[in-house]
């Protein structure tokens, strides 16, 4: 019998909204240490780090834009997606009531906010995968509007940027996306890059790429090198925290390549802000573990 995980999912939502992952906090602290003392950049990062501490302590949202709740559910064969979705929706509505989340589901035609973060089957977004074994893994990413607005998709070849259908072309369009974003995505950011797919799958892959933790290298050595090169060069732009100038503009780049049509070569950039909110719930043998 499929257990009721509503309470566990509620805790996952609370954790994700209020407690920044350790690896992200560490990356921000390192970036802060590298900025000049008394610089705007340093004071911005100090403010951010203070806010992170405060939010965790008081269980308040790290950022007021708690974004689109995007769930990735890996569950055993035979479990019901409809039941899981129902539990997720109940947890999200309750989290909204408890003010862990801001009501963010707006009807695009009427402008009406639903008030409880439940929209259609796209809000919250839930992706399902069936896995072997009896462990359920639920990952939650909260992705805000600011970062989403500077996320973008290119088609290669790109004439303006002299970018062809190769990794050099990918480099150019990703750099262009970072330049165009300036500070508007709440830099310093993280870049999720999807290569290939149709337009939808391409963006999906870009967001999925973001899940690789900050210490995991890319299994593909060419992509690993490209990730490091993009991060290093993006920082040479000097855009800095909040786009107010500084040494750190991008904290990490994560690339995922998937298959594409012969006619299409999409490169999608899922720009993630400094408030990179992601956590995982692992449920096995009646016990819940949170990462």
């Amino acid at each position, binding site marked *: 019998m499929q257990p009721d995980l509503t309470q566990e999912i509620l805790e996952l939502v609370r954790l994700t909204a209020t407690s920044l992952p350790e690896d992200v906090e560490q990356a921000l602290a390192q970036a802060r240490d590298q900025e000049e003392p008394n610089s705007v950049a340093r004071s911005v990062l100090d403010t951010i780090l203070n*806010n992170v501490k405060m939010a965790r302590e008081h269980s308040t949202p790290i950022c007021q*834009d*708690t974004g689109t709740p995007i769930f990735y559910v890996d569950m055993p064969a035979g479990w019901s997606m409809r039941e899981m979705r129902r539990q997720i929706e109940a947890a999200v509505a309750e989290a909204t009531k408890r003010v862990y989340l801001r009501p963010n589901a707006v009807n695009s035609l009427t402008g009406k906010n639903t008030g409880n973060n439940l929209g259609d089957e796209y809000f919250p977004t839930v992706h399902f995968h069936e896995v072997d074994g009896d462990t359920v893994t639920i990952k939650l990413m909260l992705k805000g509007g600011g970062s989403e607005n500077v996320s973008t998709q290119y088609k290669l070849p790109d004439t303006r940027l002299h970018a062809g259908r190769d990794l050099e072309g990918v480099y150019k369009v990703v750099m262009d996306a970072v330049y165009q974003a300036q500070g508007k995505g709440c830099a310093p950011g993280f870049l999720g890059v999807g290569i290939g797919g149709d337009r939808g799958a391409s963006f999906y892959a870009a967001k999925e790429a973001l899940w690789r933790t900050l210490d995991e290298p890319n299994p593909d050595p060419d992509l690993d090198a490209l990730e490091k090169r993009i991060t290093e060069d993006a920082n040479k732009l000097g855009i800095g925290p909040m786009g107010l100038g500084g040494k750190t503009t991008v904290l990490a780049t994560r690339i995922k390549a998937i298959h594409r049509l012969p006619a299409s070569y999409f490169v999608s950039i899922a720009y993630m802000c400094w408030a990179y909110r992601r956590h995982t719930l692992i449920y096995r043998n009646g016990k819940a573990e949170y990462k």
Partner: protein
Amino acid sequence: MREIQIPIDDETIRSLKAGDAVSLTGVMMTGRDAVHKWMIETFIRKTREPQGDDLEVYEAIKKILDGGVLYHCGPVVAGLETGEYKFVAAGPTTSIREEPYEAEVIKHFNIKGVMGKGGMGPKTLQACQEAPAVYFHAVGGAASLIAQSVQKVLGVYKLEFGVPEAMWVIEVKNFPAIVTMDSHGNSLHESILKASEAKYRELLGV
């Protein structure tokens, strides 16, 4: 860090320069996408007839915005059921979305400070020189920290726009911000854009 009292006078505005760190105290109002559209359509370009409580709200907000600060923010608010509102998370939203409207809004209401993140464009920069007014940049996502500077929620207008889009009237104390666009035509955003553009062209060979 300069302490600024709201309402702000023109002399104070003219004395502020891009890059100055400030600490704001007084009463301010939030307003973002829905509010700007409503203001422009109903009262400034008048492409729409005032309806319901529009006129009442307009009279009330005129007083708050005259010499005041408009904060681009969609807060997380507790106490919705009881009406005992408390700001829980209140960082800025990206201001550039209001660029088509802001110059007219600043002039119509005599707003002295527009606050948000990411800066605004040439139309707003021009209006800042004329009004005079400045753009205050609050730290994006420092939501819980900023909520602490909100002493009291004095009221809310147009809650039917949704919690993030309503006009929240708040009393703040020592709200930290940086002037990034001043009343003399200087914009930190423009200078960073130019500097990053040079490097970008060099790296991409374009």
